[in-house]
């Protein structure tokens, strides 16, 4: 059975925010919401100081805290392990927003803010038609693209090739091939103590 996941090689990330932009364009994300983001910090001290970049997104956990918290059972896992929000069932309780240990699920007030005051661009209008107001919003691993045999927008766009998407269980998938080829250190997940079994792995 397919089990989609992502591998992010932090050694390659250059913090160009191409993934963030691609995600926003592909999914019509309002300006104040970042389904996909890149965190930055500085580690070490001069002369060994350096900037560290951490791309973050929904981890599409095996045991999602958001799914368990949702009182209206609007969050579900597809057969291929992608965690999605059913907007028809979402009642806007926002329990998922509080429950996600990664802070990667958002509540959109109405249709969300627009990029320009008092003006809705045709692109925003297009995405608004597909969405419902006052619902939770999260990364979908670009399920509409994946089902068409394409890669998620962030993966496709990343110029440094630091994001690898694929079936974690398939030895021939991009992820497993990357791991076999590069033979890096053991991939790790963020906040393993949360017990949600994330499917977004990182390499350092």
């Amino acid at each position, binding site marked *: 059975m397919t089990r989609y996941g992502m591998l992010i090689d*932090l*050694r*390659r*990330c*250059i913090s160009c925010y191409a993934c963030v932009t691609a995600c926003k364009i592909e999914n019509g994300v309002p300006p104040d919401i970042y389904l996909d*983001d890149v*965190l*930055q*910090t500085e*580690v*070490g001290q001069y002369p060994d100081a*350096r900037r*560290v*970049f*951490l791309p*973050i997104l929904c981890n599409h956990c095996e045991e999602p*805290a958001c799914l368990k*918290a949702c*009182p209206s*059972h609007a969050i*579900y896992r597809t057969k291929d392990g992608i965690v999605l929000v059913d907007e028809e*069932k979402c*009642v*806007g*309780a*926002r*329990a998922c*927003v*509080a*429950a*996600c*240990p*990664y*802070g990667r699920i958002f509540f959109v007030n109405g249709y969300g803010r627009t990029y320009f005051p008092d003006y809705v661009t045709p692109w925003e209008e297009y995405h608004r038609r597909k969405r419902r107001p006052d619902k939770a919003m999260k990364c979908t691993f670009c399920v509409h693209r994946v089902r068409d045999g394409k890669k998620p927008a962030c993966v496709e766009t990343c110029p440094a090739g630091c994001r690898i998407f694929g079936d974690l269980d398939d030895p021939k998938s991009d992820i497993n091939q990357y791991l076999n080829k590069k033979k890096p*250190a053991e991939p*790790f997940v*963020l*906040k393993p*103590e*949360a*017990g949600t079994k994330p499917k977004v792995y*990182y390499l*350092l």
Partner: protein
Amino acid sequence: MLTRDIIPVPLIDTLALITIVVIVVGLIYQFIMWRRVTPPNLWRDIRMHLGWGQIVLIFFKELINRVIIQRELFNERWRWFAHITIFWGFIGLAVTTTISYIQNPEADYVPLTTPYRILGNVSGALLLLGSTIAVLRLLLIPRFRRERTFSDVWFLALLWLTTLTGFTTQYFREVAYSTPTEVSTTLLTFNYILHIVFVGLLIITAPFSAFLHSLTTPTLRYYQRIHANLLEKAQIRDYRELAQITQIEKLYTKSKTRPQR
């Protein structure tokens, strides 16, 4: 015949005590699970930046909106109706049981017109109405049947059976008290034991069944509101993002790995 003749009051008290211990242990277990993902200094920062006034104000706003009137379900009439009747029915029965335990600890016969018995019956009727609607929705709407988990079905089925056997027990108790025959006594005994078993199962599995959402949903919502207010007021980074970046900082420091350029 009285219910205390079927199951003695001290035995009921002992069972209730065991149930309370199981519930408390279950809730502590759940709390430990949640605590693992809560940032360590969050409440200290909330107290510092928001103050008790804001904390209490948000609490009451959430209590009214999410619990007392359940405003978030206003757009789904039937669902709201089922929720509100189940919730207030349950509260009414909890109050009735408490008053009954204080006023009538020996479980003597009390007429139907006693105020707390009226409250109990009205609350029971509300609970039965709400749970029946919920069960019917589950049975008749295929989408719900497909999507509900075992814990939902377990909770709903037990709630409905508990309420129903509560009423049948009450009916047979009245019958057995006014015209005690072997049939009425047997029916009372059977119904009462069944009712106690259902009550026990409903309460004892509460921390692990859909029952828990009555606590988790308003609590998580309250937490989310407080958290959002804190981030806005203190202009600080989301704690969860901070925890993730801190993890990476530690790993970098530990591994001394230089990013490839």
